[in-house]
């Protein structure tokens, strides 16, 4: 049995107003595995990711990253083991793509030092891995949404961690760019000889189906009232009952044979709670 890259035990979390966001979450991820977190808006996906990233202090429960408890780690140490591809990038000064990716080298430089030649080599290599080498001198702020995601992925790769956390990596992307991001995620896990693991918050069930069809070890967890209401393989968890209970929508899952692989996909049909408008 290989040691878990990430192990979460009985995680509780509440913000200042005492509303419980996470109420006893447990799971673990092995090498080469990708975990897709589903759940309605505001259910605590990002809060949980923030706990894993060390942004939220864990008060109850435990998170182990490569065997070490996150409570004993400084933020610099967490960043040596976990990289992050955020959903939104806050607009700031117009850095070039290369300057942006170099920021991923922070954990490998001293407090009062700048990245050196070796770091530039690593950064350029990471840009190549996501097919963005040709963009290295472009201004990051002027890139399209799909290009931004790939540069952020390259920056995460430059951190050279075994675990990357994605927060809705394909939000606002068109079909092609969405597929592009997911394909690169698949490729990176395979190219790493299954040493790299990923956690992804997403709203698209078909991502999980796609990853599974590509032969990546995929786990799906569906958040429900601060817990995992369902967890398992995509085919077991992403079914019409769970979608109805957690998202309150009626869905249909189709099974297709695409070339030689089975490809599942899910489409939404209607509200399952009598057509009421959003009640949060």
């Amino acid at each position, binding site marked *: 049995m290989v040691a878990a890259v990430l192990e979460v035990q009985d995680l509780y979390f509440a913000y200042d107003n005492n509303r419980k966001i996470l109420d006893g979450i447990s799971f673990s991820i092995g090498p080469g595995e990708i975990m897709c977190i589903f759940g309605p808006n505001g259910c605590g996906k990002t809060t949980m990711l923030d706990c894993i990233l060390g*942004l939220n202090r864990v008060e109850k429960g435990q998170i182990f990253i490569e065997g070490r408890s996150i409570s004993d780690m*400084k933020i610099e140490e967490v960043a040596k083991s976990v990289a*992050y591809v*955020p959903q939104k990038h*806050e607009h700031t*000064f117009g850095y*070039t793509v290369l300057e*942006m990716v170099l*920021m991923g080298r922070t954990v490998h430089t001293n*407090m009062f030092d700048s990245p050196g030649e070796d770091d530039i080599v690593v950064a350029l290599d990471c840009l190549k891995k996501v097919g963005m080498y040709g963009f290295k001198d472009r201004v990051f702020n002027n890139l399209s949404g799909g290009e931004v995601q790939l540069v952020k992925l390259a920056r995460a790769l430059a951190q050279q961690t075994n675990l990357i956390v994605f927060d809705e990596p394909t939000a606002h992307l068109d079909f092609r760019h969405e597929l592009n991001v997911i394909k690169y995620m698949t490729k990176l896990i395979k190219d790493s000889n299954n040493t790299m693991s990923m956690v992804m918050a997403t709203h698209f069930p078909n991502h999980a189906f796609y990853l599974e069809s590509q032969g990546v070890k995929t786990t799906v967890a569906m958040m429900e009232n601060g817990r995992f209401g369902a967890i398992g393989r995509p085919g077991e968890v992403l079914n019409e009952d769970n979608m109805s209970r957690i998202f309150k929508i009626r869905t249909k899952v189709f099974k297709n044979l695409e070339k030689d692989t089975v490809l599942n996909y899910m489409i939404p049909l209607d509200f399952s709670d009598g057509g009421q408008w959003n009640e949060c």
Partner: protein
Amino acid sequence: MKSNKISKKLLFSACICIPVVLVFVSLFIGRYPLSLTEVVTILQSGINSTTPGVSSIKHAVVWDMRMPRALMALTVGGALAVSGGALQGVFRNPLVDSGLLGVSSGAGFGACLAIILFDNILFTYILAFAFGILAVVLSYVTGKIYKTAPTVTLVLGGVIISAIFAALISFTKYVADPYEQLPAITFWLMGSLSRANYHDLAIALVPILIGVTGIMLIRWRINLLSIGEREAKTLGVNTALCRNIIIACTSLATAGAVCMSGIIGWIGLVIPHIGRMIVGNDNRILLPLCIALGGSFLLIVDNICRSLTEGEIPLGVLTALVGGPFYIYLLKKTKGGGGW
């Protein structure tokens, strides 16, 4: 273009050469005309001796008046510009300048107080410096009241504390003796390098060198702070520590500059922008360039100040008169561009 090594070297040499040339040119500018050979012989004979064949007045004009003043202009301008540039990064806001956290208005009040209470220039330096630092500390404490979004509340703290010290400055003006003290206060608040001498320069250099060295060492991390707290943390930056170091360093440098020169606006705001237009936003290159640009700009402005009219024009007047329209031009030019 920016990663090109040759242009980087060229830029580096320009940063060294242009200020040196400007200092040399400054030695000729002023009421007292000097020829090229005179200046060169005076420079060759060294600071402490007299120059054979040249009057001791000319020697004093070069070594005791124009030279320390030019060096002071370089130091003060460089310190203000690099502090402004660093704070723009930390606060992720291109409209920030070196006085953001109240250091200028605090120092202004300290100086006014000293002018009223003591008739001694040394006390003016000390109180200006002390109140400049005090203002930053107060802004920092105010900003800590809310724990969330620390940069926003810090800016708010700076605005509040600046306003309080501005009010206190008005009060000192109100109670000041209108024939002796009020002109001194007004003149100080508009900034001037006319008192420059080596002794003052040496005193000012201590906090300025500490501050600027600190900024130079940590400058790459300013890139990281400028992309936002969350992302910086996930990339492994101890954001609070980094931010505090930079605030401390910029405050030392700015207070050191302001206590010698009085309040000089615009340099901490405009110079970093000119730098951004030349080399882009990477603080690794931008901030060293800011030192050279800020120093050169203040030296040029100071030369205009002391030679344009019979009397001296206060520095603050000209930096704003030159800086203001230029800033508007920049805003127009970078509108919709990739700059910020």
